[in-house]
């Protein structure tokens, strides 16, 4: 217990007496973590946008006017039971017509047609949009659907924007993997940077370490203050980074959202908390491991 107090006292002293190297390593940790945090926030925003676009993907299955209610119920139950489907709804012929009228600029066209040419449809919302092909395939090949679909061409009665969906998912997947690779790269760069600054800070004090060894300090005792200092730098650097990101969340993001109202930019607080925690833990781990590694060569007996 007394030695922990001693380590703490020493690390505070080391802090004040090596102010320039201390500031150097704190700023390095701060900037590295800040940039990583920014990218994490950016990645979640992009992911949100991608998700909202992907969620637009749904399957519309047009059914024949002659389909019986029993068959329709059976098909809906079957589809609702499929993996990756979140909800199934039914649009009657009349509803389809209402919708068309609402969307169309000259609703009079419909009246001139006489009767209702629009088919009823089953709308399938997906919980996992990436599975759209799979779900569509299952619906298409099922006997139940064959019964309610237009007899001439069942394949044509299923609409989910095949080509567009394929391209969309290609792009969103590239975005996701690209983001992951970028963040991994950033973490690596930060690791190298932080490790280097800590190495320099410890190298500047190798004389002190040599003297500690000379008077018979055990390796654990020598390591203590340095590790604690490394941890302290990491915590301060991480706190600064978290503070800056929090400022961005409070000030910059709402403005961005206001000017880009059509995109869902706002990220949940939970995500931010997770990012903050990750930054703190990553900083601590890098600080501690970096210090331990840098010390190793000076502690060889």
């Amino acid at each position, binding site marked *: 217990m007394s030695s922990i107090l001693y380590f703490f006292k020493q690390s505070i002293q080391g802090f004040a007496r090596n102010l320039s190297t201390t500031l150097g390593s704190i700023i390095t940790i701060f900037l590295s973590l800040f940039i990583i945090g920014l990218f994490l926030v950016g990645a979640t925003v992009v992911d949100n946008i991608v998700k909202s676009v992907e969620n637009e993907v749904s399957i519309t299955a047009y059914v024949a006017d002659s389909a019986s209610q029993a068959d329709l119920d059976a098909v809906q139950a079957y589809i609702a039971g499929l993996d990756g489907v979140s909800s199934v709804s039914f649009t009657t012929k009349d509803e389809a017509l209402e919708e068309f009228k609402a969307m169309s600029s000259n609703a009079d066209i419909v009246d001139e047609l006489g009767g209702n040419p629009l088919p009823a449809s089953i709308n399938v919302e997906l919980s996992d949009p990436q599975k759209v092909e799979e779900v569509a395939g299952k619906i298409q090949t099922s006997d139940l659907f064959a019964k309610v679909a237009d007899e001439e061409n069942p394949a044509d009665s299923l609409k989910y924007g095949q080509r567009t969906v394929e391209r969309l998912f290609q792009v969103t997947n590239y975005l996701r993997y690209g983001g992951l690779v970028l963040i991994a790269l950033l973490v690596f760069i930060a690791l190298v940077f932080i490790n280097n600054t800590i190495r320099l800070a410890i190298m500047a004090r190798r004389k002190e370490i040599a003297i500690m060894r*000379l*008077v*018979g300090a*055990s390796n654990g005792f020598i390591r203590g203050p340095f590790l604690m200092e490394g941890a302290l730098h990491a915590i301060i650097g991480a706190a600064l980074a978290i503070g800056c990101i929090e400022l961005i969340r409070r000030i910059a993001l709402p403005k961005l959202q206001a000017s880009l109202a059509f995109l869902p930019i706002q990220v949940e607080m939970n995500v931010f908390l997770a990012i903050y925690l990750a930054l703190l833990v990553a900083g601590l781990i890098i600080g501690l491991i970096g210090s331990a590694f840098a010390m190793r060569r000076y502690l060889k007996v």
Partner: protein
Amino acid sequence: MTEATNQGARSADLSMALPVLQAEDIPQQGAPVISFDRVSKVYPAQPNRPALDNVSLQIYPGEFVFLVGHSGSGKSTLVRLIIRELRPTSGTITIANEDLGSMRNWRVPYLRRNIGCVFQDFKLLPNKTVFENVAFALEVIGKSRSIVRTQVPEVLRLVGLQDKLDKLPDQLSGGEAQRVSIARAIVNRPPLLVCDEPTGNLDPQTSRGIMDLLERINRTGTTVLVATHDREMVDNMRRRVIALERGHLTRDQQRGVYGSDV
């Protein structure tokens, strides 16, 4: 310059002419503190020229021993072997009945707590005061604050620096700095004090003060080993002299002099 050299040579001749006294003030008894048994050390950079070649010697408790020799004769290597900063290529070194060859790495700090070390360049921490520098040696081996507060002023009084507790090392003269480093070496009362060129940076007057201090420490029962090439000092004090030349032990003499052979 020439005069000084002549004087040195003359006094060396004179002391060589004196009979070597075999009388022993300190009986060499008990287990030796330091024991070298056919120790050789070869640095990888110079495989054909061993730094120490087949050196055997014993140093007993309470002795005051000078280790003399030119630069590169192996003095510093011997000192670094004693504190196990280096390991011998062959042979065994025993310090206080403990074989350094089989000593585990984690035991080394405990060995060093029993050996006070003084170096030519003082090795003081520049950003700590005199008091803190000495206290450091106690703190890092986990001594309590009350022990630090009583023992540090006491040892600084012993070396005559009781007024300089709050000075920083660069506010001290060379002699004072060396006293601080001696105080740091003896503050936890090690049975063995090893000095590598303690007066190498100091003028003769100050050197004498340092040697007096080492002698006083020796009188309290501490074994003292001083590696030096300070001819005048060795000749004045007439203590046991071990001479090294190119890694060979050439002379081991009670009440010896620096001599002309080294």
